[in-house]
Structures are given as C-alpha cells and as structure tokens.
C-alpha cells in the first residue's frame, strides 16, 4: 500500500452549511486548554476555602470541556447543523430523564409512599 492515498477527495464538505475542519495546530491548542481546565478542576477540589463553590465551578468547567470537545474535536462547529440538533435533542431528553429520576427518588419520596397507600 502506498504511503499516501487520496481518500479525502470523496469526503470534503458536502453541504453549503459545512466548513473545512481545523488543522493540527487548532487541535493542539484545544488539547492544552483541556489539560489546563482539568488541572484547574483538581486544584479547586483540594482548596478548602473553595469548597462552597465546588459544585458551580466544577459544573461550569466540565461543561466548557464538553463544549470544546463537541465543537472542535467532534466538528459540530464546522459540520452540518443537523448533527448539533441531534445531539441537543438527545441531551435535552437525557436531562429531562435525569431530573425526573432525581425528583421521583429524592424530593418526593413521602408523596410516593402516600400514593402507594
């Protein structure tokens, strides 16, 4: 097999709403940002004075990491918007299920017992 195979030609942008994917330099920058955020998360975890901020700070940092991977590594920023809509639909359904389960089993336990007789 040759060292180079022109396979990319058949897989360029196929739709007007798609754009060229970024190159290795952008990927490396994102990797550095992800590493710094992860280090920041662990640092925040061990700082006693920041314990009261743990949940909001870590939630925001992990959401930023999630968004960076989805936008740049999974190419949602550059690909057809239908992919973003599919992911958002799944996430909204997942969040709804998540909140419903928490509500059922934590907040309204006495009510459930009452309903069960």
């Amino acid at each position, binding site marked *: *097999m*040759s*060292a*180079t*195979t*022109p*396979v*990319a*030609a*058949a*897989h360029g942008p*196929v*739709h007007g709403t798609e754009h060229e*994917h970024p*190159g*290795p330099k952008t*990927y*490396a920058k*994102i*990797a550095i940002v*992800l*590493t710094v955020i*992860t280090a920041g*998360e*662990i640092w925040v*975890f061990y700082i006693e004075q920041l*314990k009261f901020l*743990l*949940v909001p700070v*870590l*939630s925001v*940092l*992990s959401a930023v*990491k*999630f968004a960076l*991977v*989805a936008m740049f*590594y*999974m190419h949602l920023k550059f*690909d*057809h918007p*239908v*992919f973003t809509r*599919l*992911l958002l*639909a*799944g*996430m909204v*359904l*997942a*969040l709804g*299920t*998540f909140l419903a*389960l*928490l509500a059922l*089993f*934590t907040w309204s336990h006495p009510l459930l017992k009452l309903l069960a007789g």
Partner: protein
Amino acid sequence: MTAASHAEHHHTSLGVDSRKLGMWALIASECLLFGSLIATYLIYRSQSVAGPSPAQILDIPVTSVSTFVLLMSSFSIVLALHGIQSGDIAAFRRYILLTALGGTVFLGFQTYEFTHFVQSGLGFSTNVFGSSFFMLTGTHGTHVAVGVIWLLSLYFSSVRGKLTEDAAIKVDTMALYWHFVDVIWIVIFTVVYLFVFV
C-alpha cells in the same frame, strides 16, 4: 465503485453521510443511557446502610491521571483523522495506535481501581453505592473496550490494505464514538469523583 460514487451512495437527502448521521443518532440515544445511569448513581450513592462510602474509597489522584490519558486520546484521534483526510497513512496509523494505547491504559487504570475496591470490601453487591458505581463506570469501561477493538480493527484494515475506499468517513465515524466516550467520562469524573464530598 469509486470512492466518490460510494460516498455519494451513502448520502441522505440532507447531503450528509448516512453513517455519520447514524453515529450521531446513536450518540443522542447514549446520552439517555448515561443520563439515567448518572441519576441512579446520584440517588443511591449516599443511601447505603453499610460501608464503604464514596469518600472512603475513591482515589482522586489516580483517576485524574486516567482522565488525562483519555482526554489526550481524543487529541490523538483527531490527528489520526487529519492524517487519513490528508492522505498521510503513516500519520494515521501512528495516531490510531496511540489512541488505542490511550484507551488500553485507561482500561488498565479502571481494572486496577476495580480490583483495589474489591480488595477493600466494595463489590457489585456490597451496597447500593457499589452497585450503582460499578454499573455506571463499568458501562463506560465497556464502551472504551469496544472503542479500542474498533480502533485496532481500523489499524489492521489499513495495514492489510483494506482501508482505501471511504476510509476517511469510517475513521470520522469512529472518532465521533471515541470523543463521545471521552465527553461522557468528563461528566462522570466530575459527578462521581470530584463531587464526592458534596
């Protein structure tokens, strides 16, 4: 059939590849699976009547290292994808192997963690924390294992010269799966390990 006509054969009416669309649909449905498992863990983690509890047993430094390894494997697979898209097969093979190695190292850390927990008295049926913890992280680990097998199959297909037609879209679809496994771990690491004292 040429690569171009084969690719056209897989296009949907939206102009996107049906295999890529299928992978995104799978990812959307996997969000529901992991959302339910994370909720189950949060409900049960503090309801155990017997130990050990999460704060007694979870090892943050060790898991931080494995999290970093998994994050970096997401970086290496985009480099593998870039390699195949630009026709640099050598770079593709190098980075796809590096990604598989990252996944294997992550699984090694998980195996170490699980073994350590069992030796410390926390099994799958010890308490509800153990059941929900092993179910959540075990399901994720299974996804990583499937990903490693998929990565290696792409590598060996390339070595045997069978990865010529539609190679880029096959790697792109696999990369989406791998990134999803990574982003789900970002959430699991935060919720299970870093929220341990909350």
